[in-house]
Every structure is written in C-alpha cells, then in structure tokens.
C-alpha cells in the first residue's frame, strides 16, 4: 500500500503546513512517509507544492507522477498536468474547472493565508481517514475555531476514494534533516550555534534559536558569514563547542578562516547545505555541486573531515559525531548536506542520546605548549583562563608554544606534525563502521554508487532492480580501499549524483575508481523514484 500525493498552491497559502500536518496524521497511523517541499524563492504568491509519498514499507523518496493531486489554485492545475497519470485523482478549488476533478472549498483563514486546514480536511476524507485523526493538529493552530470550521466543512465537502486504515499503534516520528542536524549537534555537546541566514541551512538556525533555552545553548546571528566563522573559532578557542551553518555562497566567504581552523588546530563544525548553483543560482532548490569545493576549500595543506548524511537518521548521528570528531582531532569538520536532506520530512527513528566525548586535554604538568609534538600529531588542549599558563594559537606557522617561525626546519616540522595528524585521522576514520554503507541488494554484481541525500531514492530503485548500492558517508578521508573492495567483482558500476559536471565521479576517479555510466541530475530537483528507475533500467 502506497500513495503519492501532490498538494500545490500559492506561497503563503500554507501548502507546506498542510503537507506537514498530513505527514503527521499518516505517521500517527503507523505509515512511513516522505515529503519533498518544492518552493521558489519568494514569500507570497507564485507556486509552491509538496510531494508526499507514504507507504507501509520504509520509503524515502517521491515519484514524479502522483496518485492524488490537490490543486488549491488555478495555477497549480496547469503546473501539475505533467505529473498526472490517467487514473490520478484530482481535487481542485471550487472556483476552477478541470474535467473529472473533484471540487472542494479551499478556504483561507485570512486573505492569502493558510489554506492548510481545508487541504487537510479534503485529503483525510479522500483517504477515508477519520476526521478525528486530524483534529488535534487543527486545534493547535492559531485561530483554532475558524480553522476547525474550515476543516470540518472541507472534510464534509468530498467523498472517500481510498480507505486508508491504521497500520499499527506505534506513531512514527517525523523529522526534517535540518531538525535532525540541530538535535545531533546539541547531543554532541554544542554550546553555541552561529549562523547568518541562508537557505537551505536557515531552518537549523531558526530551530535552535526557538528552542535554545530548553536545549541549553546560545544562538548568535552576526553581521555576515566571515564574522560567523571567526566568532565560532573564538568560541572553540575559549573551550566551548561551536558550530556554524550556511550554504555554498556563505561557505565561500568562510574559506579563509577554514584554513585558519586547519592551521591553528581549532575544532569547528560547518554545516554546508548545498543548493543549486553556481552563485545565487536557484536558491530554494537542491544540488550536490559543492562537493569538490568543500573537499579542497582553503589555501594550503591541512587535514579536514567531510561527512555526508543520507537521511534524517544519519543526519542526527553524523552531526553528533561531527562535534566529537572536531574536538577529538582539533580539525574543521564539514557536514555536507543539501536542500533535499535538510528540508524534506522523513519518518525517522532516532533515540536521542547525549554523547560528548572528552577531547585530549592537557594534564596540567609543566609548561603548556599548545602545539606540542606528539606521536599521533594531536596536542593536548587547554583553554585561556587556566592558571599559570598561556594558551597561544595562531594563523602563522609556529613553534610548539604557538610563536611565529619562518625557519625552514621549523616550518617543515609543523607541516609534518599536521601530516601526522592527518594520518591519525585517516586510520581512525576509514575503519569506522559508517564510513561506507552497503545497501540495496548486497550480493549483486551490478552496483550503484552514490552519496548524500540520494540515499532514499537510490536504495528503493536498487532494491527493485536488483542493484547493490555503495554509499560513502565519510568523504574525507576517503574510504577508497573499502569501496574498491566492494566493487571488485562488479560487472557494472553506475554513478548517481546531482551535479552537472559529475563531481562525485571525479572524486572517485581521484582514487582510481571508475564507473561505467554516470546518471546526473541538475535541474534543482531531487531524483524522483519513477524517473531514476527508468534511467537505471536503460543500462
């Protein structure tokens, strides 16, 4: 049992809200659900839609063709003709016309605002879900009386088409990737989140700002991204865990200080939520085309860690991990997401658990040297304010105490220290269980290799078409030996990614991993399941 539903309407008309409420209802009934949110960069008007798929099996993708299309305005009818199948059930605004469509009263609470209650009412009735299942959500809205009457009227205005039954008593949890990242960071010990607004990373800022008191953190929104990252480095230097969040353009502005983080060995987590570029591009749409930039950003040689979650659960886990890794190794850690990961709604099973690893701390004996040369390249940490010592960090090449050096031997010595640290990181990371995931049909000799938010759609297609899926979650240090091991006996390897120039495939080739074909999408939309399946079937 599964259905794919599109709800379209104007920005500001509560389309996203309707999608979220419906997802809540269906997840309460025990279903798995995935919601892709498609909206242009504007505040009111235009055309928004949510694409919702739910199923009794675990799913994490949507299809391009919908079983039900709910068009709350005339433009939505035209926009979604291409997404309809022959048997698609259409529900349109009572003021509009379309052959065979059900017409319903999509009422606004105020002019131009909130059609969500009416959409929910219509949709639940259509699916044969009892009115009571949606009521608590409606009653938690502002202007609840008005919303309730709109909801009831809408519910009663159409007839049942499907009969969706409760699947189990367990209500599934819903989470966006961004919420998962926020919570993961908090559970990894986040003290202060610093960010300048930028789609699609802003929801993390908003979520943390709203809940900062309960979560016990501080949230800062400074004047620009350069300030953001330098503030964060100050916070980490002073001994508190910091994290920043941005998208490609903002990240670009941070690259000077990224290199500082590498040189000064100051822990830092950067959440980079990719969107369709280059430049301002298509800012509310998705892409995976900042990959190579993130891997090599910053001048000079220094170690870094780059992690790429594929869904909300991995986002939670890797975000928490990112905080710990940054402090364990005193390096910048990039958490590389995208709009699809960040803003889609997932049914996720997350057991929140605080996990704050103690970093390597100074033992308090003798003189303190911030950049002490050690076997593993990692120097013990101490923080300003500690009695009898001074903690000196610097953007210049330096000696063990942190004083500038220019002498050839000393310069090489510190470069070697950081190379040593890179090796320590590599040895640790590539053995981590989660470095790569093997999914789909693990026995198959036909392989899809992909990364990030393609996880859901690729795994589903792979299961149906009998492909094995290899997906690295750690992109730097790159677990190439393990990938090669998994690929060894493959007869066919297909790459799947959202980048016009095929950045992921170029990364693979850097490690001698070749693919037979590369399926690229770069129109700002995620892969749809039916679309990807037919593309895969061509090979």
């Amino acid at each position, binding site marked *: 049992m599964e259905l794919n539903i599109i709800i379209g309407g104007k920005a500001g008309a509560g389309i996203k809200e309707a999608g979220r409420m419906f997802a809540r209802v269906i997840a309460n009934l025990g279903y798995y659900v995935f919601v892709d949110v498609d909206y242009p960069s504007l*505040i009111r008007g235009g055309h928004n839609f949510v694409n919702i798929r739910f199923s009794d099996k675990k799913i994490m993708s949507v299809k391009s063709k919908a079983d039900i299309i709910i068009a709350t305005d005339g433009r939505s009818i035209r926009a979604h003709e291409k997404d309809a199948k022959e048997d698609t059930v259409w529900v349109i605004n009572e003021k509009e016309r379309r052959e065979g469509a059900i017409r319903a009263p999509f009422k606004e609470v105020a002019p131009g605002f909130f059609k969500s209650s009416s959409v929910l009412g219509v949709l639940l009735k259509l699916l044969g879900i009892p009115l009571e299942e949606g009521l608590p959500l409606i009653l938690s809205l502002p202007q609840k009386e008005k919303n309730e009457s709109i909801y009831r009227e809408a519910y009663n205005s159409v007839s049942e088409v499907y009969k969706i039954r409760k699947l189990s008593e367990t209500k599934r949890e819903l989470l966006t990737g961004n919420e998962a990242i926020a919570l993961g960071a908090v559970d990894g010990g986040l003290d202060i989140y610093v*960010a*300048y607004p930028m789609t699609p990373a802003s929801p993390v*800022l908003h979520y943390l*700002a709203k809940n900062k008191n309960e979560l016990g953190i501080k*949230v800062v*929104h400074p004047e620009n991204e350069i300030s953001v990252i330098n503030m964060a480095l100050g916070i980490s230097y002073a001994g508190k865990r910091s994290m920043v969040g941005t998208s490609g353009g903002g990240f670009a502005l941070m690259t000077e200080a990224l290199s500082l983080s590498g040189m000064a060995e100051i822990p830092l987590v950067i959440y980079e939520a990719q969107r369709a570029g280059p430049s*301002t591009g298509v800012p509310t749409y998705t892409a995976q085309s900042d990959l190579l930039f993130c891997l090599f950003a910053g001048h000079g040689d220094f170690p870094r860690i780059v992690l790429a979650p594929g869904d909300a659960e991995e986002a939670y886990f890797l975000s928490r991990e990112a905080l710990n890794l940054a402090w364990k190794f005193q390096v910048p850690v990039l958490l590389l997401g995208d709009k699809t990961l960040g803003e889609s709604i997932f049914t996720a099973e997350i057991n929140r658990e605080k996990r704050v690893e103690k970093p390597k701390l100074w033992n308090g004996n003798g003189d303190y040297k911030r950049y002490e040369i050690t076997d593993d390249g990692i120097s013990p940490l101490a923080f300003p304010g500690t009695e009898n010592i001074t903690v000196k960090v610097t953007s210049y090449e330096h000696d063990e105490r942190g004083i500038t050096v220019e002498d050839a031997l000393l310069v090489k010595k510190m470069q070697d220290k950081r190379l040593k640290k890179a090796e320590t990181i590599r040895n640790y990371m590539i053995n981590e269980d989660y470095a790569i995931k093997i999914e789909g049909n693990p026995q198959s000799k036909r392989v899809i290799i992909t990364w990030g938010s393609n996880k859901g759609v690729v795994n589903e297609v792979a299961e149906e078409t009998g492909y094995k899926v290899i997906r690295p979650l750690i992109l730097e240090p790159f677990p190439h030996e393990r990938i090669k091991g998994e690929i060894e006996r493959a007869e066919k390897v297909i790459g799947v990614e959202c980048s016009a120039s095929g950045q992921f495939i170029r990364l693979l080739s850097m490690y001698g991993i070749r693919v037979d074909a590369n399926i690229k999408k770069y129109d700002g939309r995620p892969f749809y399941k039916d679309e990807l399946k037919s593309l895969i079937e061509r090979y």
Partner: protein
Amino acid sequence: MAVAKKSLYTGAEITWCRLCGNFGLMSAFGWAVHELAETIPYEKFVILSGIGCHGKIVDYIDLNSFYSLHGRAVPTATGIKLANPELKVICFVGDGDIYAEGISHLVFAAKRNTDITVIVHNNRAYSLTTGQFAPTSPSYFKGKSTPYGSPEDPMNPLAIMLSSGATFVARGYAGFTDHLKNIIKEAILHKGFSFVDVLQPCVAFYNTYDLYNRQTYRLEQTDHDPSDFEKAYSKALEWDYNREDVKIPIGIFYRVEKPTYEERA
C-alpha cells in the same frame, strides 16, 4: 525636447507580496527615470541589486542591470562607473544586504565619493529569508533568529553615512511615492556618492505603514539647510530607528559638492 517614454517593465512575473513597499519604491524610481530621460538616454542607466526581496527589482525594470551578490552591489557599481563614467549607476540594496553583509563597501563608497547612487530598501528585516532581525530592526523585534527579541539596538545608517563622508544623504518613504521620486531624481543628479535610505514596509514580516504614515515629516517643510553638516547630523539622530513615538524626518539631510573618486583615481 520630449523623449519617447520607453516601457520600463520587462514583463517578468512580479513575485513581491501584495502591498509590499517595494512597489512604491519601484514606481518612484520609474517616474524619476522617465523624467530624467529628457536629458539622460535610457541606455545610460545601469541598475544593480543585492540579494533579497529588494533585489528582484532588476528583473522587473527593463534597464541595463547587474543582479549582484548579497551585499556586493556597491563595489560592482564602482567598477562600472570607473570603467565607463558616462553611465548613471544606481544600486538597489537591502538593509540586511548593505548594512550587514556589505557595510564595508558602503562606508568606502561614501569615503571615496564615488559617483553612484545607493537606494536602500530598508524594511528593517531580512525578508526573502523569511524574517530575521536586521541591523535597523528595533530592539524588540522578534525574528526567526531572535524569537525572544533582538539582543542589539538598531544602527543609524544616516549617522554612519554622514560620518563616512557621503556627499548626499537622504531618507525617503516608499509610501510617499512622489516625494521619494524627487529624492531619487536629486540623488541620481548629484555628482558624487548619493545615499538614500528608503523606509519600505514589509507586509509579511514588519508592517510599518501605520508607523511611517503617522510619524514621518518632510524636511523641506522645515527650515532645514542640507548644506550644514552639523544640522544634518543632528537631524539624522532625531530618530534612532527604534522608538515609535518620535517624529521621523524624511527628505534630503545633506548635500555637498566634492571631487569624485572617478575624477581622482
């Protein structure tokens, strides 16, 4: 000599909210251009913008344009003017855009007296990013990044511009289109750096129509002398972008002639 009026509309879909202050601002600018077109050919205008709701204006107006980056329209404009001093270069920028991200460029454009015009769509909010506090938001502003109220007091951009050496400093209100049109015309005609802070209500995140309708008054209707720096500065301090109970002067605060950057560089 009457010049044929060119349509200034590109035909692109306008995606500002109904009643957004940007409409008034765009009209004022359009009128100003039509009037100026008597002496300045349309093709000599170049408009630029930052990123934000304000930025969309360059998609709508059919003049040469450079849709720049968030906060960066001003240096780009300086480059254009340096390369071709015959062009009339006007930047449409946002308050988040130029008072936060790009403040360094604004200060230096003023310092250099580069002959461009900067028009700030000052809605005192980050709107396109769905409503965070901005440098000119009042301290009680509850935005998405500051749901418990902004921890900062607003900046006074006019005071900063005067202190940075701007040779033309004005404030307009998008609700008084005709008055704004005159300011914009003067700003474009001014030889040197012209700065116009435009109070622009944002109906979605900070609807200030009532406030400005009630509190603004026109400097021309007082004995204000725009050639007097001290008076201009104290006028600039009259309203702190925070209080709602003081009068808000609009009009030309300051105007003085100085050699431009392009002449000196």
